[in-house]
């Protein structure tokens, strides 16, 4: 395949680009919209919003999700908030500033045009959601409230207590059900996408499995939108939901879509540490805890087993305050995370397995009083106590970083269309807006921007330009895809080995975390790249999946997802290996400043790495989309 990476990003004055592009886009005649079928896979913020908006426009939409209801998509778990450049606080925010912060926060690895559009649309999102009845926090005057989030210098984050994602998702979910009621969207819950159908080079359908009956069938359409989230669960332990997986994106990749920047993964520093081998997921606690908590570990290895209260002040190492005196405990996520890893690597970590650091509120309680601390963090303290059984008012919390978000994803152009015509990708599943690192409270913004305000235009633009031949489930390509899926399911069921899918997943996750986690180096990545294919081979020889394919079979579902992670992990490590620089969430220990800061190499690596699939075990082909920065000029950050 000869692939030309065309971003299709408009040129000219950046603030006019989206406006101009919208005007230049082709429109579908209103009477013709109902003749087009659009498939949306995933029902989170991006998928739910896109399905609802496209249905509203008049397209026939089919929406698929693996959960029992679209309301359970993992967007629901986002806590902090959603950014928007409303400048309600009169503190100097603007679309341009949000754009600037996002490009800079992404460590200059995102496309400027996309980011500007995101910032521009952010204001419409708040309007839309407020009109839907999202109960945003309000001031006594009735105006919307804002807070400053994730170290931003302006208060631009809108929130609904600690459940912003839930409230935004329910807004999209309700809009979606209105379209379902109106007959414009058909919803397929408990249905998993297992493959994608390409006919004449265009995305024309998907192969799905009804997770209750086990029935595998083809669903055909004129365009396919994937909004299937990120791949954080390749690490097994992450803050993602248990069901989150890379399957839809990976299957699309195997059928020609390029996967971009898989090595960009984000770590969240304030999660509850692992308590034992049984651990199935990690729970995130809001970063706001670092506003008042002090991070420390014992100075001496010998003290790690002692009760924290018995360690004298002089024997404690408040390492963030020591190393970064001006930012202290509020250094950015990646720095806080890496430093936690470093002290644990030195053997000074606390708690089970030595993988944790203290987050101590004793000073805050002394300074503000227990009531004030409870007022600010009561919910989080309760959650911590519920999970660990320890009372954080009395004993310091233990925290450890965890995988939280993945910036990489399927490569898309400015229209959010992948290199395969007719295949669109929205939300966390695409790579588009966050570069190498995502700002806090920007994930919700991007998902909804894609779903409500970008895809509804760009999908129409694509459809208006095409002469699409009718396709059905009898098309040769569809039959082939169906057969491939059936083969794979049968294969998984017939291995009848001795190990469960979970056991492979855990092993893979640990490997990825150790070698391709918070800090990476060529040696470790080389080891991972050697080990992953071995593990994959063992998986296909020694997997055990009980039950049959013709029933609700959660082991089979897991097995399919783990099989794809076993292929995906290799690409992630490979991408991390080729990117010989440190940027954003990707930290190569060989490439750091003397102060231990990430050292970018703009000369060589100012590009998007978009990988082309060549087959299992075959080296993928790297395509590069060069990134130009006309407005925000790359600079090195410093938090000393």
């Amino acid at each position: 395949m000869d692939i030309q990476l065309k971003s299709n990003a408009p040129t000219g004055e950046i603030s006019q680009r989206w406006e101009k592009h919208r005007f230049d886009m082709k429109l579908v005649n209103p009477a013709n919209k109902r003749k087009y079928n659009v498939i949306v896979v995933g029902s989170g913020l991006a998928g739910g919003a896109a399905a609802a908006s496209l249905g509203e426009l008049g397209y026939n939409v089919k929406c698929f999700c693996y959960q029992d209801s679209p309301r359970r998509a993992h967007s629901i778990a986002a806590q902090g908030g959603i950014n928007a450049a409303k400048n309600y606080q009169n503190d100097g925010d603007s679309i341009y500033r949000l754009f600037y912060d996002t490009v800079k926060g992404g460590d200059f690895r995102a496309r400027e045009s996309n980011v500007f559009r995101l910032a521009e649309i952010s204001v419409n999102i708040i309007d839309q959601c407020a009109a839907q009845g999202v109960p945003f926090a309000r001031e006594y005057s009735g105006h919307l409230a804002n807070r400053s989030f994730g170290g931003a210098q302006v208060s631009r984050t809108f929130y609904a207590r600690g459940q912003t994602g839930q409230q935004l998702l329910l807004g999209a979910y309700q809009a979606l059900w209105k379209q379902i009621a109106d007959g414009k969207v058909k919803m397929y819950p408990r249905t998993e996408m297992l493959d994608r159908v390409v006919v004449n080079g265009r995305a024309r359908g998907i192969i799905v499995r009804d997770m209750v009956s086990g029935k595998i069938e083809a669903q055909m359409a004129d365009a396919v939108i994937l909004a299937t989230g990120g791949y954080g669960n390749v690490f097994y332990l992450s803050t993602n939901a248990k069901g989150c997986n890379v399957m839809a994106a990976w299957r699309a990749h195997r059928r020609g879509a390029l996967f971009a920047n898989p090595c960009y993964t984000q770590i969240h520093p304030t999660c509850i540490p692992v308590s034992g081998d049984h651990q199935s997921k990690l729970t995130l606690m809001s970063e706001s805890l670092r506003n008042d908590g002090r991070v420390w570990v014992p100075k001496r290895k010998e003290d790690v087993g002692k009760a924290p209260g018995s360690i004298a002040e002089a024997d404690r190492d408040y390492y963030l305050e020591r190393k970064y005196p001006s930012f202290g405990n509020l250094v950015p996520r990646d720095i806080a995370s890496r430093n936690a890893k470093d002290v644990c690597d030195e053997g000074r970590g606390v708690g089970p397995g030595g993988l944790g650091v203290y987050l101590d509120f004793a000073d805050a309680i002394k300074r503000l009083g227990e009531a004030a601390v409870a007022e600010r963090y009561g919910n989080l303290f309760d959650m911590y106590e519920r999970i660990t059984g320890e009372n954080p008012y009395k004993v310091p919390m233990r925290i450890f970083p965890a995988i939280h978000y993945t910036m990489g994803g399927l490569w898309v152009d400015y229209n959010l269309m992948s290199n395969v015509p007719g295949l669109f990708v929205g939300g966390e599943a695409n790579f588009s807006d966050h570069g190498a690192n995502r700002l806090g409270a920007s994930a919700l913004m991007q998902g909804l921007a894609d779903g409500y305000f970008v895809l509804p235009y760009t999908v129409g633009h694509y459809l208006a330009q095409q002469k699409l031949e009718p396709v059905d489930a009898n098309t040769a390509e569809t039959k082939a895809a169906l057969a491939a899926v059936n083969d794979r399911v049968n294969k998984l069921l017939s291995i009848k080995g001795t190990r469960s899918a979970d056991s492979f997943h855990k092993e893979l996750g640990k490997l990825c975390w150790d070698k391709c986690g918070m800090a990476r180096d060529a040696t470790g990545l080389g080891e991972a790249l050697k080990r992953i294919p071995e593990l994959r081979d063992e998986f296909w020889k020694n997997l055990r999946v009980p039950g049959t394919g013709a029933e609700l079979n959660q082991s089979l579902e897991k097995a399919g997802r783990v099989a794809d992670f076993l292929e995906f992990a290799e690409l992630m490590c490979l991408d991390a290996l080729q990117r010989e620089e440190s940027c954003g969430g990707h930290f190569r220990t060989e490439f750091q400043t003397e102060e231990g800061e990430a050292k970018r190499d703009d000369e060589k690596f100012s590009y998007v790495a978009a990988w082309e699939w060549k087959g299992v075990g075959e080296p993928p082909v790297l395509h590069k989309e060069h990134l130009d920065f006309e407005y925000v000029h790359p600079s090195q950050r410093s938090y000393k």
Partner: protein
Amino acid sequence: MANTTAPSRDLRALPAAPGPLGLLDSTIGQKIVMATTGAILVGFVLFHFIGNALIFAGPEAINDYSHLLHHSHGLIWVARAVLLLAVVLHIATALRLTAKNASARPQPYKVKRDIATNYAARTMVWSGPILLGFLLYHLAHLTFGVTPGPYQHSPEDVYSNLVNGFSIPWVSGLYIVSMLSLGYHLFHGVWSMFQSLGINHSAYNPRIKHAAIGLALFITLGNISIPLSVLLGLVH
């Protein structure tokens, strides 16, 4: 249930017809009917007790009161019609709701622990029929005077009827037990009435709750005091 999930149950319900009669067609409407008829019956029970409490003021007071009611130019029949309608609606709706509630969980739990509910709430379906039985007996006893046993009924002398009737220990016992049942029914019913009619406000809820309990206690203890007083010879 077939081996598939939702789509087999793809039904779309139409809302009940507008207007008060439509209330009979929804579970919430039925609750509102229960509460409204319940309110009428509570009003009656309260009024009935206050009238009967005149027994403590002597034979003349209560007999005059009875006389007044019986010569109210048909008003008593209006009241009786309203009460009858309320009783019929209350019972019929209760039967419908109970049937619906029973069919809502065809397979019971092996183990079920109740946390918030109470004895009175759980036994509404028992205290209700007990009260109906009592009502029939009570009408036969003190209104029509047709109950078996050593009891002399005189249509004009309510006072003697009460004294005669309650002098028989088992009759008094029956009344007392029934009134306890009424107490339980009111304990849950009066509060429920407010909740079902949507009379609920955080500022007034505790007061509503207390008033409901107070009313239930007042009516129950008050009613019990009459046969008890006769039994103890305080009224003779």
